[in-house]
């Protein structure tokens, strides 16, 4: 898919420089190509640099070695073509659900009537009608994440970056949110890069799963995981369970390596 790839990551290194202690190589020669409207999961043990890679694509951290191209253009900073959803929601606590979603549309210079309408549409899309005037502190974790997803989708980014978005939710809510994300993604297809350490989640959601090695992070293997996702019962099928098993074995080695490394040196995660 080389010429048509939307995101091209070419031999990217990233050095994490803590205020105290030695520098740590977080990413080592990472290359990855993601096609238009493809759903790719980045899977790996904690500390492998998968979130760092996401932040580099988002333009939040500077790309020092290697290049990241989006539609052929170098990433130099954050922009509204890439929306991001964080594990801990990152909602503005002083704004209501409505205010949070309106904010991005305001920054995009959308006229008032239009942005009010669009905001209500997205509140409905994520099933939060009736909660538009609630503050984040009054919402459950699942509702906060729905708000964050609505806020990001409302500005219609071409690329959706998701940093363990369901990692802070309980198991039932997580399952519901996964199905809902797929439903929304099928309605408004976008390129998605989804960071997770949950193998089943990665296999269920993504078209391809990129398995990352323990620090320094490299792309170890890429596994095709296309399934018919309309039916959540797929999770119980033999084919699916085998796929999860196959990938789990790849991750397990890395998780063990990561643990051994951690017990040798207590390095902070970037």
């Amino acid at each position, binding site marked *: 898919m080389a010429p048509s790839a939307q995101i091209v990551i070419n031999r990217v290194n990233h050095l994490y420089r803590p205020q105290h202690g030695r520098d740590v190589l977080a990413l080592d020669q990472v290359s990855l190509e993601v096609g238009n409207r493809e759903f790719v999961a980045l899977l790996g043990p904690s500390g492998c640099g998968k979130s760092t890679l996401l*932040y580099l694509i*988002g*333009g*939040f951290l500077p790309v020092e070695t290697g290049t990241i191209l989006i539609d052929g253009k170098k990433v130099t*900073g*954050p*922009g*509204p073509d*890439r*929306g*991001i959803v*964080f594990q*801990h929601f*990152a909602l*503005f*606590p*002083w*704004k209501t659900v409505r205010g949070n979603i309106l*904010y*991005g549309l305001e*920054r*995009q210079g959308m006229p008032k009537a239009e942005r009010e309408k669009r905001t209500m549409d997205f509140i409905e899309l994520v099933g939060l009608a009736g909660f538009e005037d609630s*503050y*984040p*502190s*009054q919402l459950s974790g699942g509702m906060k994440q729905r708000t964050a997803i609505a*806020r990001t989708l409302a*500005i219609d*980014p071409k690329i959706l970056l998701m940093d363990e978005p369901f990692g802070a939710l309980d198991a039932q809510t997580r399952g519901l949110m996964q199905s809902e994300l797929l439903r929304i993604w099928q309605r408004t297809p976008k390129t998605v890069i989804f960071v997770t350490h949950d193998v089943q989640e990665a296999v269920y959601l993504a078209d391809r799963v990129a398995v990352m090695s323990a620090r320094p992070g490299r792309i170890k293997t890429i596994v095709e995981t296309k399934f018919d996702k309309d039916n959540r019962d797929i999770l119980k099928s033999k084919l699916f369970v085998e796929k999860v098993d196959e990938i789990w074995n790849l991750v397990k080695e890395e998780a063990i390596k990561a643990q051994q490394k951690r017990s040798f040196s207590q390095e902070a995660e970037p």
Partner: protein
Amino acid sequence: MNETGNALLRYLPLVLLAIAWEAVSRFGLVSSSALPSLSDVVRAWIDLVKDGELITNGLASLYRAAAGLALSIALGSVLGIFMAWWRPVNVLISPIVEIFYPLPKSALIPVTVIWLGFGDGSKILLIFLGCMLPVTIGAFNGARSSEQVLVWSARCMGASRLRTLWDVVLPSAMPELLNGIRTALALSFILLVSSELIVAQKGFGFLIGFLGANGNYDAMYAVVLTVAFLGFAADRIYLLITERALAWRAS
């Protein structure tokens, strides 16, 4: 009804104190020049209001406090936020803040008088200098605690770096900043009255000193009580405003 009852019960100790005060001076347990009876003080207060003395001097004082405080809030917030946002500003300013912080600001009274004379200017400058520190420190600590992911979120929704200062850093800093302003509010009353006591031709502090020097103790106490009440009322109103402004926080 119940709420009013609770409020009454809460301030019962004040009522008891007032009764004790009245009794102590009525029965001659202390001399009336050291502590005039409360009823005499109230009578003196009414006279002071009637002849306009309390109002004229009060307005002069409130103007000075408000002007000094407003300046300190405006400059202190900006300075604190820029200190947190931009390292060179922090490197430049923080040693100055550290040295200046423990200095009793009343020591600056003669200095401000030398600079700006006996009128409003010297009081406003003193209150401004004294109140700026708690505001700056509140804004600085608050802004430093603003979360990286919130700034990033705003950035990828199209906010410029400078814009995130206003949209993310300032509201993040608000709880600590409002706390700093509360300290500044109390400090402004202290600095106001002490500077007016030493050199002034009008104001609450001037009135207290003038009445005391002339042996008019009933009226002197009346002014002292007025200042105490105003300080209390200002703090209560401020707390109400703060609660409103921070309604978004978890209750």
